[in-house]
């Protein structure tokens, strides 16, 4: 079965820029700026700040006084105010020039864990530094937002990383959006927003919870026949064999491969440990959305991670979906992403009497607790 795994090269790693200095020709850039001043592209905004409103009111006042009185001193003041406004605009565009930014997100987000949202800001100008910028970063689903400031100047030809430490509270899909670049540079008259920001969808895994998991041993003390699916998990080398699709790279014996002119992998001794398959059933009749269901997801996720670390996780299955063998870390991440999006199903009939000795199932318990069962026996709780 083909399993879709998330791309490892997120779109957000691409650089974004203000979008009006893209041409090599200075003349074209100039006319592009002029055009965008008249017809601002989507997301581009220029709003007066309180200082700007005062300046505009002042200019209007001085202008009308100048016209009424024909005082050239007032005309002179007015022209100085207007040219300051013009200078402010030019400096703001110069400040934007050569600026590129990109969003560097951690590969995984988890409920309850602080994760930095990193914006890499780069100044490609030759001489001029860049000042007083900020990004309005949003976690759209969680309705959280923050201005991430460039506190001091960014010299020409340098790069800086601006961070927002975010702690997400809900699992599921989250949209991290860098809404655009903003500045009030240089005098704080106008707030310019350059749109065309970066948006990225991230999956927030369930939180890690403390749980108890101590399954009872089977009749024979072990679980015979349940060998580990991951060769090489042991410590003792017993054989070398040809590579098969699905073998982890770390088991490739490079020297032997070089000698044999084909890929050879190490075969390690089997370890005599129990391995499990996590099976989650989430019928609405059994699980109501809420704290207990969240705990189920968190419990299943935490358990899967721990079992994987101990090489005791065979695979996972959710409701009527196919079993997902967990062979490598990406498989586990895929399972955690599924858990992140898991919701109780209205039309699902749970399988009765799952008695497999290696299958972990879950049931709700009193007081929002969740119990785990292995082979029908209670094995743990969270």
């Amino acid at each position, binding site marked *: 079965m083909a399993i879709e795994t998330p791309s490892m090269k997120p779109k957000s790693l691409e650089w974004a820029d203000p979008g009006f200095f893209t041409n090599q020709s200075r003349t074209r850039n100039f006319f592009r700026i002029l055009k965008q001043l008249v017809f601002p592209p989507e997301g581009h905004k220029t709003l007066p700040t309180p200082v700007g409103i005062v300046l505009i009111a002042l200019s209007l006042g001085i202008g009308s006084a100048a016209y009424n009185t*024909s*005082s050239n001193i007032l*005309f*002179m003041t007015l022209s100085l105010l207007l040219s300051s406004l*013009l200078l402010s605009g030019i400096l703001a565009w110069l400040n934007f020039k050569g600026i590129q930014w990109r969003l560097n997100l951690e590969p995984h987000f988890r409920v309850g864990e602080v994760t930095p949202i990193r914006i890499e800001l780069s100044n490609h100008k030759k001489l001029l530094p860049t000042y007083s910028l900020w990004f309005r970063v949003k976690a759209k689903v969680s309705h959280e937002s923050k201005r991430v400031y460039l*506190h001091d100047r960014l010299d020409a030809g340098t790069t800086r990383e601006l961070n927002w430490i975010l702690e997400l509270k809900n699992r599921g899909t989250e949209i991290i959006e860098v809404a655009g670049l903003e500045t009030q540079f240089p005098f704080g008259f106008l707030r310019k927003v350059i749109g065309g920001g970066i948006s990225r969808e991230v999956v927030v895994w369930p939180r890690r919870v403390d749980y108890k998991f101590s399954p009872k041993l089977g009749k024979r003390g072990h679980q015979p026949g349940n060998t580990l699916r991951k060769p090489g998990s042991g410590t003792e080398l017993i054989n070398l064999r040809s590579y098969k699709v699905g073998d982890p790279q770390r088991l490739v014996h490079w020297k032997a491969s070089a000698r044999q002119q084909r890929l050879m992998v190490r075969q390690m001794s089997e370890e005599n440990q129990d391995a499990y398959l996590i099976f989650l059933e989430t019928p609405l009749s059994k699980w109501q959305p809420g704290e207990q269901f969240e705990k189920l997801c968190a419990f299943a996720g935490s358990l899967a991670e721990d079992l994987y670390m101990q090489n005791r996780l065979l695979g996972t299955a959710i409701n009527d979906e196919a079993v997902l063998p967990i062979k490598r870390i990406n498989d586990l991440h895929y399972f955690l992403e599924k858990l992140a999006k898991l919701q109780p199903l209205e039309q699902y009939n749970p399988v009765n009497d799952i008695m497999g000795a290696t299958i972990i199932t879950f049931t709700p318990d009193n007081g929002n607790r969740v119990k785990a069962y292995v082979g029908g026996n209670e094995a743990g709780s969270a």
Partner: protein
Amino acid sequence: MSVATKQVRLSYEELYQLKWLLGGCLSLISLWTLLYLEVRSGPLITLTAAVISAGILWPSLPSKIPAVFMKAAVPSLLVVIAADFFLSRPDIIPPLIRMVILLVLARSLAYRKRREDLQLILLCLFIVVISGVLTLSLTFAFQIIIFTPCAMALLFVINLLECHDREHEIPQEGLSEFKLIHFFMRIIKIVDLRMVAFASLLFIGVLLVSTFIFVVIPRFRLDQAIPFLNLKSQKSRSGFSDTIHFGDVVEIIEDNSVALRVDLPPGVEIPQTPYWRMVVLDDYSKESFRMSSSARLKNIYDVNNVIKLKKDSPALDEVGDEAKWTFYLEGGISRFLPVLGLFDTMRFQTRQNIEINRLLRVNSTKDISSGVLFYQVENMQMMDKIPATWYERKLANLKPLIVDRSSRQGERTGLYPQTTLVLPGGSGNIETLERIVSEITEGNKLSVQEFTTRALDYLRTNHNYDLGYDVTSREEEGDVLIRWLNSKSPGHCELFAGSFTLLARMAGHPARIVTGFKGGAWNGYENYYMVRNSNAHAWCEIYDGEGSWVLVDPASGTQGYNTSGGLTAVSASTFYIDDTWRAYVDSLRILWYRRIVNFDKNTQKELTSQIKLMGSAFIDGLQFEIKQWLHNIVTWFNQPINYEKAMRIIILFIISLSIFLLIRYRSYILSQLSTEAKILGFDLGADPVRKKAGKLVVKFRNKQSELAITRGSMRQEWHDIYRDLLTLRFNDGHDRPSPRGVFRKASRLLKQKNRMI
């Protein structure tokens, strides 16, 4: 910029200190502008400036002010301001200015957050602008040019602070440790000269743009303006009032500052020593000449921007430049308006409270302007004599009126023009005057002119001109002028004029004193007439019995408003031409008045047409030059080839080829030159080819990270060019690739890469 310099930045504390310093400077600049404004607040301004300066030097000062004091400050200020407004009624501007000073002081004495900083900037801007509007001084231009970058820098720093994570924090500790010298040293260490140069260029750009806006902004005609707030000057600095106490003019002639500037119409002639007539004083009482109350009763009061002495005077647009005199009377000089003679119309920039006295031919404003007063006089005629009005024609039948001020009935001085014959009675005054007059006339009945000549001779024989003589300090009895006439003491113009007036009256000739300015200097830099306060003068007008008033200047012995020997404004070679540095500074002032303060719709039109003319003249000239040049070439080619022509063609070809080759292979030539020079022991600096290759290598390296996403063919090309660049950069051998081709390809690839990114 070194790498070390790049990394040094001002901390939050230092930025706050800089903001504090800039705020203080802004306040001081605005207070400086107030020094030119007569608002009777000198001590307050000085005190505020001192406190703000102390605040700049010791920024921890505000933290030492008890909180109770700061809390009480606001209500106290409100009470003080309200009381000031109430007590200063009906004046608005002086209490308004004082209010703003107090607010600036309050804002400068407390640590400011963003909002308070903005309030401070607004208050300071208000002060600077209002001072400029009221004084119209050239200093305003200088002050606003300093104020603007200071305010911009302050706003810039506020903006930087706002982006800081300690945005609303006041760094008390940093302020208490502030040392101005250390701070400046730190700023000098941090400052990047390239950025300073860039900022300076930007500021020059701002000035140019604002000049452009100032010029192109649509205007109305100046005479259609509504008057702005006017600040009245409390006292005439020049002493030109409707009463003359002996000694007033002496005071002012010690002052060498410019009182009046006059732009003359083109081609107009003025006397070599012009008498700028301002005030006419007819009555004499209590040892003072004054404008009699009966003459004052004839004043016409109006609120207008024009004085029309001729009913059918033309409209402004119909008056040509050749008939317009522009006067710039400095603030605080006088409310009386100096003119050279009779005129049709006098126009002001804005509406004024005007007083017109058609009898004495004196015009004035109600109040003394605190700033420069501009007025334009049209069709001014300089005459030898001032024609008497119909009202004055009865003078011929009047006799001298002796008024004894010590007696009760002495208060009655008669009505104008009888007042021009008033003599001081009592204590032997009349006897003395009679004695002197008979000495002058030798008992004969003389004509006015004859009498004048003899009286002037008498005065000049018995008295010398001396500014320093103060007759008022003598504790002798009798009228001051009679005492002086009785003596052989020297005297100044007032004494000469007053004495002559009394003698003329005693002889039965109506006479009056006129004060104003005499003479002046031609400014050699900007071609205008410049009258200084030291030109203040007093002279007389004597009625000739034939319907005219004749000028008599007893101090210099001149008679008549001499129009002969006048010189045009343009060819003023025999004037006293002032070309000292002071005249140069003053010429800047007139430029300011002409080009900035008086800039209006008409000037705008003139400027536009001048630019148009200059543009078309330039294009025409260029076209002509090109045509001429082409014509010469064609002619030259059409001539038969001779030895000289052939040689010229060959030389031209060789030069062209050399230039072409130099441009084409400049990199290679420079590189070879550099290598050869090194061999010979001269270091011409880095090899330009290697230098350029090095720069491109750096650019290529910066783009290496993005190379992975490029197409295969491009990647290969990229590697090839990079290799060539490295060869050019580091290989000295002769197997180097052609630098020009490599550089061209490298630039092309970089451009392509940038587009892809």
